[in-house]
C-alpha cells in the first residue's frame, strides 16, 4: 500500500461556540495501492476533500494514523495489533511507516513523494508568480532538484502536460481555465510523486476540457505508475478513471470496492441511491430519491449516519427519541388530529418518549399503519399504557462497522452485519 489510514478523524472547531466540533471525518480506514486510481465519491460536505488533505498532512488529523509505503503484510499485522490492542506491535509499525511525526527534512522527503491538484485553477495559482516559478515551487522547496536542472524540469513538465514552453514566462491570468489546470497538474506531478491527490480536478472546467484533463491524467498514470486519489462528486468521471471506488457520506466511508462492482451492483443503500442518480442512455433506471438533507456534522446522527435518510433503515440503525418525536407530532397534530385532543409528546431520554393524553391501542394501530412510510416509527419497541399517558420505548441502536464481503468489497451497513451472522 502506498498509503493507508487507520481510524482517521478530523474534528474542526466551530468559531465562537465552545465544545462544538464539526466531525468532518470520523474513524475512517482507507488504503491505496501503488499505481491505482481510487475514486472517492460523495456529496458536498461529506468530508472528501478533508480526507484527501489529511492523507498528505496538509491538515493535522485529530486522531488516527496514516502509514506511508507500508507492505501489505505489515498493514495486516497492524490491523491485528489494533484489534488486540497490542501497543508494542502498534508502536513498532507506527514508528516505521507513520507520517504523523515527520519533521523537517523527513517531511520534505514525504512531500516530494506526494502531490495535490486542487479544484479551482483560478485560486490555486499565485497570480503574482510566473508559471515557471509556480511549477518550480515543489521542485525547489522539497529539494528534488537544484540550480539549472530546475528550469529544465519545468520545461519538461510543460511538455508533459501539453502546454507550449513559452508559457513558462506567462502569468496565470493570461491562461484559460483548462490551461491553468494543466499548470496545476504539472505542479502536482513536478517531483515525480508516488501519490497524487486530485481534489475535484475537473469540476471547475467545462465538459470538453474535462475530457482532455482526464485523458492526460490517465496517460500520466500509465507512464509513471502514480497512485491517484480522485476526489469527485461526478460518478461518470469515476467510472471512466478509477480502479476502485470509496463512497463517503457525512464523514464516514460507506462502501469500498472495485469500480465495476460498485457501479453495477451497489450494496449500501446510500451507494444505491447515489448510483441511481446517474442518468443512463437507453435504459430507464428506477431513481431512489432520498428524503431530507445531509446531516449536520456538529451533532451527527447516532448509529449509522445515513439512517435518517435511508429507505431501508432498520429499527436498530440509530433512531433516537429526538428523531421519533417530530414524526409522532406530525401524526398526532396533523394526519390523525381527530383522534387526539390535548395530546403532547415529550422526550424522556435518548430511547424513551412519553405521549400525554393518548390511548395506547389507538397509537399502536396508527403506528402499525404508518410504519412502512415513516421509518422512524420502526424503532418503537414497546408501547406501554400508564393511566392515560403512553410510554414509548425504542430499540437500542448499534453502530455499523466496515464489513468485508467477497472481492475486496467492504460495506458499512447493519444490513450486512446481520446477514453475515
Amino acid at each position: 500500500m502506498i498509503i493507508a489510514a487507520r481510524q482517521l478523524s478530523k474534528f474542526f472547531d466551530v468559531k465562537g461556540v465552545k465544545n462544538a466540533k464539526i466531525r468532518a471525518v470520523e474513524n475512517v480506514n482507507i488504503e491505496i495501492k501503488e499505481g491505482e486510481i481510487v475514486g472517492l465519491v460523495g456529496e458536498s460536505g461529506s468530508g472528501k476533500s478533508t480526507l484527501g488533505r489529511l492523507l498528505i498532512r496538509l491538515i493535522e488529523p485529530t486522531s488516527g494514523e496514516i502509514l506511508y509505503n507500508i507492505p501489505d503484510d505489515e498493514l495486516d499485522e497492524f490491523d491485528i495489533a489494533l484489534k488486540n490492542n497490542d501497543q508494542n506491535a502498534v508502536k513498532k509499525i507506527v514508528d516505521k511507516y507513520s507520517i504523523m511525526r515527520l519533521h523537517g527534512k523527513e517531511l520534505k522527503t514525504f512531500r516530494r513523494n506526494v502531490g495535490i491538484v486542487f479544484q479551482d485553477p483560478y485560486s490555486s495559482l499565485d497570480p503574482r508568480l510566473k508559471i515557471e516559478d509556480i511549477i518550480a515551487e515543489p521542485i525547489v522547496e522539497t529539494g528534488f532538484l537544484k540550480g539549472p536542472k530546475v528550469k529544465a524540469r519545468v520545461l519538461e513538465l510543460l511538455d508533459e502536460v501539453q502546454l507550449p514552453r513559452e508559457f513558462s514566462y506567462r502569468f496565470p491570468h493570461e491562461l484559460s481555465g483548462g490551461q491553468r489546470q494543466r499548470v496545476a497538474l504539472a505542479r502536482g506531478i513536478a517531483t515525480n510523486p508516488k501519490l497524487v491527490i486530485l481534489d475535484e480536478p475537473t469540476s471547475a472546467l467545462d465538459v470538453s476540457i474535462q475530457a482532455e484533463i482526464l485523458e492526460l491524467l490517465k496517460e500520466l498514470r500509465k507512464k509513471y505508475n502514480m497512485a491517484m486519489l480522485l476526489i469527485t462528486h461526478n460518478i461518470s468521471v469515476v467510472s471512466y478513471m478509477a480502479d476502485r471506488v470509496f463512497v463517503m457520506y457525512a464523514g464516514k466511508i460507506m462502501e469500498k470496492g472495485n469500480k465495476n462492482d460498485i457501479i453495477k451492483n451497489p450494496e449500501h443503500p446510500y451507494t444505491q441511491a447515489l448510483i441511481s442518480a446517474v442518468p443512463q442512455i437507453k435504459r430507464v433506471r428506477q431513481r431512489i430519491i432520498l428524503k431530507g438533507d445531509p446531516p449536520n456534522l456538529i451533532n451527527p446522527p447516532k448509529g449509522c449516519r445515513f439512517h435518517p435518510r435511508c429507505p431501508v433503515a432498520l429499527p436498530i440503525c440509530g433512531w433516537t427519541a429526538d428523531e421519533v418525536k417530530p414524526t409522532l407530532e406530525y401524526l398526532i397534530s396533523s394526519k390523525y388530529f381527530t383522534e387526539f385532543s390535548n395530546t403532547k409528546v415529550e422526550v424522556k431520554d435518548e430511547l424513551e418518549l412519553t405521549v400525554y393524553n393518548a390511548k395506547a391501542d389507538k397509537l399502536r394501530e396508527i403506528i402499525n399503519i404508518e410504519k412502512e412510510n415513516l421509518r422512524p416509527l420502526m424503532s418503537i419497541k414497546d408501547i406501554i399504557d400508564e393511566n392515560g399517558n403512553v410510554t414509548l420505548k425504542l430499540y437500542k441502536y448499534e453502530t455499523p462497522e466496515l464489513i468485508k464481503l467477497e472481492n475486496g468489497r467492504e460495506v458499512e451497513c447493519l444490513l450486512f452485519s446481520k446477514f453475515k451472522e
Partner: protein
Amino acid sequence: MKEKMSKKDMTDKNEIKPDRWRELRLSLQVFFSNKAAVAGLVIFLFYFFDALILQFFPQILPFKHPYSLTPNYADPIPLPPSWKHPFGTTYPGVDLLRAVIKSIRLDFWLSLEIVIPGAIIGLIIGIIATYFGGWIDEVLMRITDIVFSIPYLVLAIAIGYVLGRTLNSMMIALILVWWPLYARYARSVTLETKELTFIEAARASGTSNFKIMFKHILPNSLPPVFVQISLDLGTIMLTISALAFIGFLPAANLPELGYLTSLGYNYIQTAPWAMIIPGLFIVLFALAVNLMGDGFRDVIDPRRRSEL
C-alpha cells in the same frame, strides 16, 4: 546531448535577458498610459528635486541661509503677491516663494522617513498576526490597538520631552503611532489572501511559513498597501505641519510648510495668501503622491499589465 545543449543555450540567450527588458518597458508603458499618474509623478519630481538640491547642493540656489527662514522685521506685515515677491510675504516679512522652496526639503524627507519604516513594521506585524492566527494574532492586534489609541500629539510631546525636542524624536514618535494603521491594513488584506488555495498549494509543496508569508502573501497584499503609502505621504505631511503649527518645532525659523502656514494664521482676513499658499503646497503634494500611487498600483498588478 547536442540537442539538449542547444536548447539550454536558447533559454539562456534568447529568453531570459530580453525578458527583463521587456518587463521594464512594459512597466513604464503601463505607468505612462495613466495620464493622471504622470501628472502626479511630475509634481512629485518637482518636490523631490527641490528637496534633493536643498539637501546636497544648496549653493546652486541664491539663498544666504538655505536651512532657516529669513525674516525682515523692517516690513513684517504680509504683502500681496508682486513682482518682487511672486507669492507675497508672510509675517514677519518672509518671502513666501523662497520659504516654500526651503520648506519642502524637510517635509519631503520627514514624510518618507516616517511612512516607509511605519509601513514596513506594520506589514510585518500584520502578516505574521494573520498568518499564524490564534493567540499570536490576538496578542499582536491588541498591542496594535493599544498603540493605536495613543494620540500622536501627546506621544510626540512626551518623546520630545524624553529625547529632546529634535526632529529625530518627532520622527520616532510619529513612526511609533503610524505603524498600527498598516498592521490593521495588512491584516485585513492578508485575511483574504490567506484563504486562497495557492497558499495551501505552497504548503503542500513543503514551503516554509516564512517563505509563504513573504513570497506569496506579501506580494499579494502589497498593492493596496502601496496605495495607502502614497495616500499617507500626503497625510503625514499634514500631521507634521500640524505639529509645527502648534509649535512643536526644534527651532523657530525652521522652514516647514505647516509652520509657514501658522505664521500667516493671524492675517487670514487681511492677507489670505499667507495661509493659502503654503497650505496649497501641502495639498498639492498629497494629491501628487495619490495620483502616482494609483499609477504604481497599475504597474504591479499583472492583470493591468497584460491589457497592454
